[in-house]
Structures are given as C-alpha cells and as structure tokens.
C-alpha cells in the first residue's frame, strides 16, 4: 500500500510542477507579503487592531505575524483550495482517472497519494508566504527582537523560531481546509465547484460564528483555529489554544478525508 501511495505522490508533485495553476497560487503567496512589506516601507502608518500591528516598524519579525491574521481571511484558504479542489476533479473532467485506475494501483493508493500532494502544496505555499514575509520584513524593519503578546521581549533568533512555529500551527486548520477541498473535489467531480465550494465552506463557517445565539459554537469553528498560533507568542507559552485547534481541526479534516476516500472507492468512473 504505502509504496504505491508514494509513487502516486511523486507523480502528483511532478504534475503540479508542470501545471500553470500551481504557480498562480505560489505567485500570490509570494506577492502578497511583498506588496504588504513594500507598502509598509513607503508609509509610516501601521495596521490597527491586529496582533503585532503596532510593532511592524520595530521588528521585521512582526510582519509575517501580522500577515497571518490577514492571510487567514481569504488568501491561504484560496491558494489551498485552488489545488486541493482541483486534484481529483480535474482528472474526472479530463478523463484521465480511468487511465490511472486501469494500471496496477488500488483506488485507495491513488486517493491518498493525491491527499498528500494537496497537503504538500499547502505547505509549500505557506513556506513561500512565510519566507518572503520574514526576509522582506527583516529588510524593511530589521531583524530585531520581538515584543510578545505578554509584553515581554524575545531575541531576534528566538523570535524567528516562534514565527516559524506559528506558521506550523497555522498549517493545522489550513490542512483541514485542504482535506475539505479534496473531499469536495472527489464528490463534486467538478474543479470549479470544488474550489468555490471549499471557499464558501470556510466563509459559511466564519458566518456561523457571528450569528446571534450561536456564539457558544465559536470555539469549535474551523476558522477560529486560525488564531491558535497566538498561544505561542505568550510567555509562558499557552498551549491550550494549540491542542484545542489540533482536535477541532481533526474533527473537520478526518471525516472529510474518510468521506472522500469512501466515495472515491465506490464511485463509477464513467467520464472521458
């Protein structure tokens, strides 16, 4: 089983490298932090009401953290959905699913190879966004010590470690979005529907949180978990929001992947 999954995974990555749409998302992941940093360099103002917003001119490390708050609204889920929503459906639409299903690999191996590839793409765009933000931010505001949410100061090197870890925690809900995307890609068999559907799902979850009378649901909403990384930037580190995010996201991601897998296993491949 596992070597078959790896074979599919490797070829899925090669396909992504050969596809234009891959670079669309990566381009956005690089362009947004760049544009943000350039704007900051040209103007003296700072983002208000955003964690670390007031520090963007004191330490370049504050810039990737500010971007995390902005990116969660739309950008990273969009980039994630762009590939995750496409990864099964595009093969449905091009009729290539039948081509790969009549080789020697089981459907499950194909499915999980694709899941891994979608997660890898999410990771890559996250790394790109973070990397560009850290480098461009440090160039503009300097690689200086960072003031934490508790008001204490950590050295630049320790701050860098925290920023990278924050990106890691941020990936947890993002992976859940990717798994929802792959599930919708499998179920809808339509690339556009799956990409839009994934984004609409994220927006709807966000909407539920502001409905009156449903405030108690807030801690269990996927979109709320995009703030969990802030626990890392308290002193001492507050792990509670992070472990909470881990199991809440698992509640979204695991059923999605199981549903997608079962549908993929049992469905007719009649297209193409």
């Amino acid at each position: 089983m596992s070597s078959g999954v790896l074979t599919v995974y490797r070829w899925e990555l090669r396909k992504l490298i050969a596809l234009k749409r891959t670079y669309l998302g990566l381009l956005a992941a690089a362009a947004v932090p760049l544009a943000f940093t350039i704007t900051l360099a040209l103007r003296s103002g700072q983002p208000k009401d955003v964690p670390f917003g007031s520090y963007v001119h004191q330490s370049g490390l504050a810039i990737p953290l500010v971007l995390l708050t902005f990116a969660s609204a739309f950008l990273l889920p969009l980039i994630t959905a762009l590939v995750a929503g496409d990864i099964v459906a595009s093969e449905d639409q091009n009729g290539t699913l039948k081509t790969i299903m009549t080789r020697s690999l089981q459907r499950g191996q194909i499915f999980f190879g694709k899941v891994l590839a979608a997660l890898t793409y999410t990771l890559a765009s996250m790394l790109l966004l973070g990397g560009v933000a850290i480098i461009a931010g440090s160039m503009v505001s300097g690689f200086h010590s960072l003031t934490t949410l508790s008001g204490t100061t950590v050295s630049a090197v320790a701050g860098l470690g925290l920023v990278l870890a924050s990106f890691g925690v941020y990936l947890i809900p993002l992976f859940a979005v990717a798994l929802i995307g792959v599930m919708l890609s499998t179920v809808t068999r339509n690339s556009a529907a799956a990409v839009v559907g994934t984004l609409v799902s994220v927006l709807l979850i966000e909407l539920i949180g502001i409905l009156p009378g449903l405030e108690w649901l807030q801690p269990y909403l996927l979109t709320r978990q995009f703030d969990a990384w802030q626990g890392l930037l308290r002193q001492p580190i507050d792990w509670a929001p992070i472990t909470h995010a881990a199991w809440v996201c698992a509640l979204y991601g695991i059923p999605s992947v199981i549903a997608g897998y079962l549908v993929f296993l049992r469905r007719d491949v009649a297209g193409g």
Partner: protein
Amino acid sequence: MSQTPVEARGLVKQYGRITAVDHVDLTVNRGDVYGFLGPNGAGKTTTLRMMLGLIFPTAGTVRLFGRDPIAEGAAALDGVAGFVEAPQFYPYLTARKNLQMMAAYDGGDASSRVEESLKSVELTGRADDKVGGYSHGMRQRLGIAAALLRQPKLLLLDEPATGLDPGGMRDMRVLIRRLADDGMTVLLSSHLLAEVEELCDRVAIVRAGRIVYEGALIDLKASAKSAYRLRTTDNAKALKVCEAQAGIASARIEGAAIRMEANESAMGELSVALIEASLQIIALMPETATLEDLFFHLTEGSTPGEIDFPATQASVVGEHL
C-alpha cells in the same frame, strides 16, 4: 486460477430508467481475437468499463483469468490492459513522461518497456512532444503503447480505430493482428463490421444492451443472406438461369448487372449453372453484408420498421462499408 481470459455472467448496468447493459454473458477464450459489435449506444463501452473495474455492475459478475475486477479492483487487472473510449493522457506532459508515469503505476519492470512501446506504435520521434498537441490518431496509438507497457495477456480495446483515417485504421489493424499473432488475447469493440471481419474469429453482437448473437463470424456470415452483383455476356439469359436456381432470391437487373440475394453455397452452384448455360461471367461481386443487414437477419421475420434501429445510425454504419 482459471485460464479463461474473460467470463462475464449476467452483467447488468442500469442508469436510472436506462438499462445500458442487460444480462450480458460473454466468454473470451485464450488466443481469441474477439469482436464485440454493436451500434452506438448498444452498451459496448459500459460492458468494457465493468470488465476494467471502472464502474460497478447493477448485477452479474466478471472474471478476468478467474479474478474479479469489481471486488479486487486493479489487482484483478494483472495481465490485462486496454482502454475505453478515447484513451486520455495528461496534455501538459510529454508522451514519454505520460508513459513513464503509467509504467510507475504498473510497477515491476514496466519502466524498462517505455521506449519499446513507443517504438511499436511509431511514436518515438514525437515522444518528447506534449500530448496536448497530439492528433486523435496519435493519442489512439499512445493508448495502445500504454497498454503494451503492461505486457498484457489480455487486451481490451474499445473502438481503437474510430476516428482514424483509412491509413491509420489499416495500421491499427496490422498492429492488433501482430499482437494477436504474438499470442495476446484481444477483445475489441467496434461498430464497424469491416473492422472486426479482418481481425476477429468470434463475435458477440449487442443491441440495446442485449447480446443478439454470439459465435463464430464465419457461421454468422454464412447464415446471413448476402447480396451479389453478377455481370455476364448475356444478362437477360443469365437472369433466367438465376431465377431457375434454388437458393437465389429477388434476382433482378440493375444497370449493367444482376443483383440477387443468396448464400455462399447457392452462389457456387449458380456459377456452375451459368457455365453450363454457356454464359461467360465477367464479374461476380459480393455486396458485403452490413451490420444493419446482420441485425436484420438476426431479428428474422421483422421488417425494418419493427427494428428500433434509427435510420441515421444505419446510414452511418453503411457509409463506412
């Protein structure tokens, strides 16, 4: 392990109200080049999809060399290769890359056969071009190459020559013939009688999801009344001979020839009778029975109006022959 390449029993596939495949039984034996004939929408592709484990039957079973592609999935395709409808590849990858990927998915030593497969379908020179720029015929050949990577003992091909020009059709036939001569068992669907005639020994004819004939092609053709055109030195006199001859029906003069319906043995006897009447035969041409004629024959007693065989389809079939 059963040695029978294909054994389908009671296959049914229902799409809502439409029964695409209706209790199909099919047996393909080792070494057969088996023709699976039927007009558009007869259920050929649907049957092949079930054999390849791509879709799940509503009822019935398939065994390929004794293994069940529906329960076992791709594991049952050991020694089996083929495609349904037009073979599809990744348009943004080159042909070689596509085949390398298929070989990786096949496992084993399939990767070592990529070049050889490209060569056998004469695509070596274009192997580094993206498949997106391939013509229909080239894709069709690439589909065969992808199947050959698996070194199949059984090849399932769905209308492999459809959309090819006459040269491409001939090349495809030559290729399939060569593979069959090398010992491959082939199941080939088609809506062109001419195509299976040249390749196949056994045929199943399917119409509206049901098998209406299964057996040797020779028996089918011998039993079908075929038409002949005859030209002699004296057509008027020859017509009388024809009319007097047993086993010859509806003989009449059409232009410079006499057209009649008869089976092969009656024609043989007629030629002797013509000689005995001191008539010289200038030309004797069989009019190839069309698929339509065969259907007509297979539903004997019914008039064309009673066979729900749309005229448009019939004429399409006719055009190709």
